[in-house]
Each structure stands twice: as structure tokens, then as C-alpha cells.
């Protein structure tokens, strides 16, 4: 098929996006990699320090904490978004009336600016004035907790907000995939006496495996880049108990004005996500063949 190898046409389709992307994303990343090897405070001369910033990273207790916090953060965010999103999507497929309305309501939190969501949940979690969650705790006879100040609860509290906000997106993604599974196959399996659970695991999930993988990437990437919820609610505190990589990077680069060190953290985030995406996409390639 010569038409499909037409170089001019390939350039016409590919280049506009590729050029914008290269200039706006890849060049700055390249510059960040360079910055990660210098010592620079944003004003004076730049001093080349090689991999010193990276060596410093692995000796930095806060970085190690941010790193492990980020892993927990990812687990919480992904299980809320993918787990709850999937369960609700499956339940939705059994709904006959009012689906459009319910779907839209489920989806709404995703479109609201995270600044508002963060403040909303700061008051939900609040101890004084008493927030919604503590009102519930009092109803069932528990002591109220300052969720966002307690070392034990703060990370989960912050991660749940980001997890919760985007459940709707994943719910809709899964739902759309689930309903496009051919009804004939499902009917045939039902006649064979399969229970609904068997249907789910033997027929529905395998046929939307591809969509599930994509959703995993989206959710993973969102959680790795997670920033706004912790930054707006706790600024990573108290004592770095809700610090994750992106918040720590931001603070180092812009609050502490250690631009090189901040860039080094950013490089780590990018490398981690490249590894994550490659692993998932390799897995998918294998599935395809």
C-alpha cells in the first residue's frame, strides 16, 4: 500500500503534534535534566555539580519518606478510582431507568477545580469547627479526630480526596466498555447457567482487559503526578507525613529556591513514570499478540 507509506502525508499528519510536543514538553524536560546537574538558586551563576544532586537525594530522609508516601498514595488513589469505579460501573449495567442522570451526577466531582475540592474536604475532615466526618464519628460513639493533623490518618485522608474526585471518570470508562460487550455472548453464557459473578470474571473482564489496562495507566500517571490535593490541604505536612514527590519537588524548587535539587526530583518522577508506562504497555503488547 503505497498510499500508506506516502512520506509527505505522514509528515502532514504527524509533524504538527510532534513539533508542538517536542518544543513544549521535551525541550523543557531536557533543560530540567541539565538543571538537575547544576546548583542554581534562580539568580546567580549556575554551578555544574554532576550527579551530586542525585546522591544527595538518596541520603535525604525527607525524599525517602516522600517516595514511600507516594507509593501508598498511588495504591490508595488507584484502588479508589479503579476499584470503586469498576464496581459502580458493573452495578450501573443492571440499572434500567435514570442511568443518564445518575451517571452525570457521579461524574460531576471530576469537573470541579481541585482548589474547591481541597477546601471542601479540609472542612469535611476538620475537628474544630467540627467537620462532617467527625459528626459521623460522634454519632457512632467515636472520638473525633483531626484527620489532617494526625500522623496516622493524614496521608490516607489526602489520597482519598484525589481518589474520590476522579472515580466518576473511571466509572464511565468502565461502564462504556462493559456495555459494548456483545449481549449475545452474555445471553449464551446465562443460558448455560453461569451466575452473574462468573459472567463478570469469565466473560466481561477478559473482553475489556485492554480498557482496564489503559485505565490503569491513566490512574497510575495521575497518582504519580498528584500534587494539588496535598499541596492545597496540608502542604505535605505535618512533618512530611503527607509529603509526596511532586509536592516535595515544588517546595524545593520554588520555596527553598534550590532549583537544581528540585529538578533532580522531577527527573526521578519522570523516570519512574516512564518505567511504569513501559511496563504496562509492554504487558499490553504481549496481550495483543
Amino acid at each position, binding site marked *: 500500500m503505497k498510499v500508506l507509506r506516502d512520506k509527505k502525508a505522514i509528515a502532514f499528519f504527524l509533524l504538527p503534534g510532534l513539533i508542538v510536543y517536542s518544543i513544549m514538553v521535551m525541550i523543557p524536560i531536557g533543560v530540567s535534566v541539565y538543571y538537575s546537574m547544576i546548583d542554581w538558586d534562580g*539568580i546567580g551563576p549556575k554551578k555544574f555539580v554532576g550527579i551530586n544532586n542525585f546522591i544527595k537525594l538518596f541520603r535525604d530522609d525527607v525524599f525517602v519518606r516522600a517516595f514511600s508516601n507516594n507509593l501508598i498514595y498511588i495504591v490508595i488513589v488507584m484502588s479508589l478510582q479503579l476499584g470503586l469505579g469498576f464496581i459502580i460501573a458493573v452495578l450501573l449495567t443492571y440499572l434500567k431507568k435514570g442511568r443518564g442522570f445518575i451517571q452525570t451526577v457521579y461524574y460531576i466531582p471530576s469537573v470541579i477545580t481541585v482548589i474547591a475540592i481541597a477546601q471542601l474536604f479540609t472542612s469535611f475532615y476538620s475537628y474544630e469547627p467540627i467537620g462532617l466526618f467527625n459528626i459521623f464519628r460522634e454519632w457512632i460513639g467515636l472520638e473525633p479526630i483531626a484527620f489532617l493533623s494526625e500522623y496516622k490518618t493524614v496521608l490516607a485522608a489526602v489520597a482519598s480526596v484525589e481518589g474520590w474526585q476522579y472515580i466518576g471518570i473511571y466509572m464511565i470508562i468502565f461502564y462504556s466498555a462493559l456495555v459494548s460487550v456483545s449481549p449475545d455472548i452474555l445471553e449464551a453464557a446465562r443460558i448455560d447457567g453461569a451466575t452473574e459473578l462468573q459472567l463478570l470474571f469469565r466473560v466481561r473482564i477478559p473482553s475489556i482487559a485492554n480498557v482496564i489496562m489503559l485505565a490503569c495507566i491513566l490512574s497510575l500517571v495521575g497518582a504519580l503526578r498528584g500534587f494539588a490535593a496535598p499541596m492545597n490541604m496540608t502542604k505535605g505536612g505535618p512533618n512530611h507525613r503527607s509529603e509526596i514527590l511532586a509536592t516535595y519537588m515544588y517546595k524545593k524548587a520554588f520555596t527553598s529556591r534550590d532549583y537544581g535539587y528540585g529538578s533532580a526530583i522531577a527527573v526521578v518522577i519522570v523516570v519512574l513514570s516512564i518505567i511504569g508506562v513501559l511496563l504496562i504497555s509492554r504487558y499490553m503488547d504481549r496481550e495483543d499478540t
Partner: protein
Amino acid sequence: MLYKKFRGIGIMGLATAMVLAGCGTGAASASEAQTTADAAEVQEPAASSGEAREIHYFSSRSASDDTMVTLQEITDEYNAQGGNIKLVIDSNADRSSYDQKLRTMIAGGQMPDMFDLDATPYAVELGEQGMLADMDAFLEEIGEKDSYIPLALNYGRTSDGKLYTLPLELSTEMIWYNTDMFADAGVEAPKTLDDLLAVCKALQDKGYTPFGIGGGDGWPLLRLLATYPFRMTGNDFLNQLASGEAKMTDAAGTAACEFMAEIGSYFQPGFSTTDVATGLNLFLGGKCAMYPTGTWELNYFTDENRPEELNVSYFYMPVCDGAVTKPNEYWAFGGIGLAVNPNVFDNQYKDYLTFIVKNYSPAYFAHQHLAPQKVETDNTSMFDPLFLQVMDDTAKIGDTAARPWDVVLNEDVIATINDNLPGLCMGEESPEDFAAAVDEALEANAK
């Protein structure tokens, strides 16, 4: 076939055209918005001719803040007297956003013509690079140095004694308290820091939340931390911390850490994520007995504006045994100052800034704020009694004003303190651990 091909190209062409049109309308409406806004904003008398000189001011105060309103008024006045300046204000009142943007602009080589800057180590570095106009020289030149209240002006001095900013306000900080709750607990306004802790204890025993504090915004906690060192050494300990001659584990630092560990137990639970607006409203709503703030919130406490059933009074920073600073010496400063980009500071700009210096304070004072320059008042009937009372206090203020730590210490050290202080207040971290963390940051940032 040929027809088909044409239609295909036609569709592509349409798509491209849409893109171009999209950009086009975007750009067009952008400039349109600009011009209409210009027309609305300029408000210049017909007398001034030609293009107005634009001065871009990046401000950390919201556009409705009285400092901004006053500057705008003075600019109008200046233009009415034949000047031709257009003050273009871009403001972002979210302080961390402001800092991020200012630093990015400066790192990217685009310093605004005028901007807000504290006398931080960042200002020192900018000054060393010759990137800030020297205000000592400027004020000397126009003969206006003596018009300023020294504590307001000197607040803007960097650690190496240079002055790069002009103050726009004069603020003091105090702690407000609920007089009914104090009476109920049988206590009075504390004179010493030990009294303060005793008062907190008495209030807590009576079931009140002693302190409502906006810990989420950082600075209220920093002020309390700085109390003991200021009483024990004036600003010496702070300056020595900055220069590396002192450590947090020294006597003044230890006293500070232990004080925070103790007083922290009297804050409302969850204080570390409470913003100052919530802290203020807890106090106004009668949910806590004390609330530390500054004169910029005076308006909320006047008889006119305060909730009816709420009775309040205030006290300034308590002293301690063997204090070297006097009770009339406490938090007082000129607020974040006005800095000027020296590369654009030509005669026209100088003339404009001179006009601002000569006219700012009376105009700002008229909005019921303490002004950074001496203002003559004969008619005080227009002012609220509370404002006059605070003005009276300020007139009697001592020579040494307490300097906020977040201005003097390196940003990374402040970030470390801000990160670790809530844990200390909650009793999760020991004073020793806290001091060690601060010392580590001090050492890492020593030059």
C-alpha cells in the same frame, strides 16, 4: 474520483482554517479585551497627551487591598497634575503563588518594573547582582528619608544593611482575647509568657479552647516560636542564626522549642491545616478564647463590625524573666515593601515614585490604616476609637521591633521550620528533634 479528492482536501482545509480562525479570534479578542480594559482603566485627563508610560507592578496584595487602592488614587492624582503614567497592576494574593511567579519571572530574565519584596536572603542576592534599585540613595536624593517612621522603613533593610524597598504600611501584631471567657476562668490578660501558659491552662480547665490559630498559613506559629528568643536577646539570636553564629540548641532556641511544645497543647485540634480566616471566625464566633493577629484585621474587632454578644480586648507580646526587650517592644513592621527594577528606573519613573513617596501616607491613612510615614492629624472624628487606640499604642512603641523569622532566615530553613513546627506543637516531635532538624537545615544552607 477527482471530485472526491477535492472534497477530502476541502475538509482538511476547513479543519486547518478552523484552527487558524480559532487562534485568530483568540488573539483578536485578546487585544480587543485589552483595549476596552485600557479605556476603562486609564481615566486620564484629556490634558496629558501621547502614549502613557506603562509601569507594570506585580503585587502580592489583592487588587481591592487599600494599599493598591491608594496607589491607584495617587497615580490618578499624578496624571491629573500633568504626569503620564499608567500603573498596570497584576496581583496575586496567594503568597506561595506570588513567590513562585516572581521567582520564575526573575529567573527567566523578566523582572517586573515594580514588585513586592521582603528583605529576605533572596533580596540580598538580588541586590548583590545589582538587580534592585537602592532606596537609601533614592530617598536621600529626594530628601524624604526623614518622613518615614524608622521602624517601618528599617523593616525593609536586608541583613547586610541595604534598603531596596519602600514600606506601604505599618502593622503591629497583638493577641486578641475574649473578655467574658477570661472573666469566667478568673484570669486577666497575661503580662509574662508564664502567665500566658497559666491563662491557657485555666481556660482549658473551664472547657474553653484557649487558642484559635491559623497554623495552616505558617506565619502565626512562627511568631509564637520567635517570642522567647526576642524577649531573651532582642533580634540578636535571630541574626546569629542567620549568620551561622548561633544554633537552635542554644539557650534562646531551646526556650523557644520548649515553649512551643507546651503552648501547642492549647491550640484547637487540627490547627495545622486551619487557615487564618477560619481562626479569625472561630474567635469571632466565640469558639476560642485567644486569637493572635495584626492590625490589618483591626476592622473585624471594632464595636461596629464585631458580633454583638462578643466582648474582646487585646494584649501585646508578653515578656519573660530577665527579658532584654521592653513590654512596649513587640511585632511592628512596614509590611512587604515596594521594590524597583533598576534597569527601567529612569527620570520619568523617578519623578512618579517621588510623587508616590510624597503623597502616599496621608492617602493611605485616610483609609483608616497606620501609615509608614508620619502623618499630621487634626481631625480624628472620622476614625474608629479602636483605630485611634492602636495608633496611640504605636506612638509609644519602643526602639527595637521584633523581626519576623521568615524575613531573616533562608527560605529553605523557614520551609523546614514550617514543616516541622506542627509536629512539635502536637507533641509528636520532641523539642530536641525539632531543634536538630532546624540546625541541620541551617548547616546545609550555610554559606
